[in-house]
């Protein structure tokens, strides 16, 4: 077969490009690789990336639309025969659900009253932002998803992202109308988690394998096969209690997690905007009084005297 004809054409033969320019492009590529490492990505490059993904988001969405429709054809026809039966079943469940809904509303009201009484501020994770995935490259260097929602919709960097089954990752780059989600399986992913049953803490570490591993477990951690793993919220960046997966040992005896989110392709996701709880900033007078408090505590330890019961007492004692 001849690609483009059986003979060479005069207009296309002898095409040469500047070697200097080509070498310069080689060097630029190498410099970019050195400066765009995931661990130390500059804000300028990050905003450039976000801008380009914003521009490309509509094109990717358009490219994915036919396949998205195609993937729904099979389940649609397969489910037709069961629809009537499911419909009846769902009506019955709806009636039962009404009872639970009333109970949930009642409990919500009760909780609000308790929170007001205790002056508790619970993190707001109720508002969720739905988005389609626009890009899902499973490359060897990064495991991420591009989703069709950005700062304009309220998505922020660090926000957790879930599909219908569980956590898939967190937002690492935000554009106006698109965001990039770093998956839990990526090499750079670190999420503090815990076992739902025993509250045993660990860090979920991605290693590009299908099952991320659990690191930093204590020696006698109370963990069993099949334990439900949820986010612990210890980093203050993610809310507590988001479903992650099930604990299981691998062949080497290390703990890994079978992710809930793997039960289906990541097509439609929800971003949960989350305001992290910031640590309290000590005011200046308290800082100045700290050495006094420490000295008092040390004296208390050494001489058996009780240390001041609270910072308030310490601060009050320091005033003239």
């Amino acid at each position, binding site marked *: 077969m001849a690609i483009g004809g059986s003979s060479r054409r005069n207009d296309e*033969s002898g095409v040469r490009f500047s070697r200097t320019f080509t070498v310069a492009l080689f060097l630029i590529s190498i410099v970019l690789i050195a400066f765009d490492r995931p661990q130390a990505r500059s804000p300028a490059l990050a905003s450039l990336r976000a801008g380009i993904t914003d521009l490309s988001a509509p094109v990717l969405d358009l490219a994915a639309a036919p396949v998205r429709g195609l993937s729904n054809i099979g389940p649609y026809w397969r489910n037709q025969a069961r629809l009537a039966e499911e419909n009846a079943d769902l009506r019955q469940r709806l009636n039962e659900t009404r009872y639970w809904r009333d109970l949930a509303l009642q409990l919500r009201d009760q909780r609000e009253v308790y929170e007001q009484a205790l002056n508790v501020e619970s993190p707001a994770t109720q508002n969720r932002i739905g988005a389609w995935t626009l890009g899902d490259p499973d490359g060897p260097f990064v495991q991420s998803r591009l989703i069709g929602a950005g700062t304009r919709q309220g998505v922020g960097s660090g926000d957790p992202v879930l599909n219908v089954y569980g956590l898939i990752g967190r937002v690492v780059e935000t554009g106006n109308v698109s965001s990039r989600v770093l998956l839990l399986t990526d090499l750079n992913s670190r999420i503090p988690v815990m076992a739902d049953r025993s509250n045993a803490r660990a860090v979920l570490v991605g290693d590009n394998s299908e099952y991320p591993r659990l690191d930093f477990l204590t020696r006698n951690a109370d963990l069993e096969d099949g334990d439900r793993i949820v986010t612990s919220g210890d980093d203050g960046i993610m809310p507590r209690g988001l479903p992650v997966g099930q604990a299981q040992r691998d062949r080497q005896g290390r703990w890994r997690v079978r992710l809930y989110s793997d039960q289906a392709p990541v097509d439609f996701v929800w971003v949960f905007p989350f305001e992290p709880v910031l640590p309290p900033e000590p005011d200046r007078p308290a800082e100045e009084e700290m050495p006094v408090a420490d000295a008092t505590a040390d004296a208390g330890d050494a001489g058996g005297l009780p240390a001041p019961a609270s910072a308030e007492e310490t601060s009050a004692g320091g005033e003239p």
Partner: protein
Amino acid sequence: MRSPVDTRPPYGLMVWTVISLILALAFYAAPLRIANGPDLMPMLPLMTLFIWSTVRPRFIPPIVIFVVGILNDVLTGGVLGVWALAYLVSLTIARSRDEDGPTREFGPVWVRFLVVLAIAIPVAWAAGSLAIGQPAPIRPLLIEGVASALMFPLFAVIFVRRRSLRGTFGS
């Protein structure tokens, strides 16, 4: 001596080249898997660059290869420069073998594409591993490489469909 036809600015072909490169990038990065499983998407941007640099080399200067590589990196969320370097190195070496104009016979073209793949994959793997600070898994790259090698004939026929295919591969 250039023919009168050659003096006309080939705007149509240029537009088609640009559109094909954009489409290749879009389909490469878009979520096209219908079900969970191995991603069998071939390296569409590299295939498109290679075909155009064979058929119409003057439309694919190094800066175009670089820009396509950078866009590939951005759209796939990878480190900037990895695919740009891989594409530049592999396609420049492929070109330097025959600077007076590459052959158009399909057999040698396919072999040349395999050579390009054999260069691009290790370069991308090495650059990517350097960027992430540890050896990257090679399996996804090899799967993409095999898919690209196997799908290249079909891809080539689609891209050059307007040209004569007499005496072509397999006939």
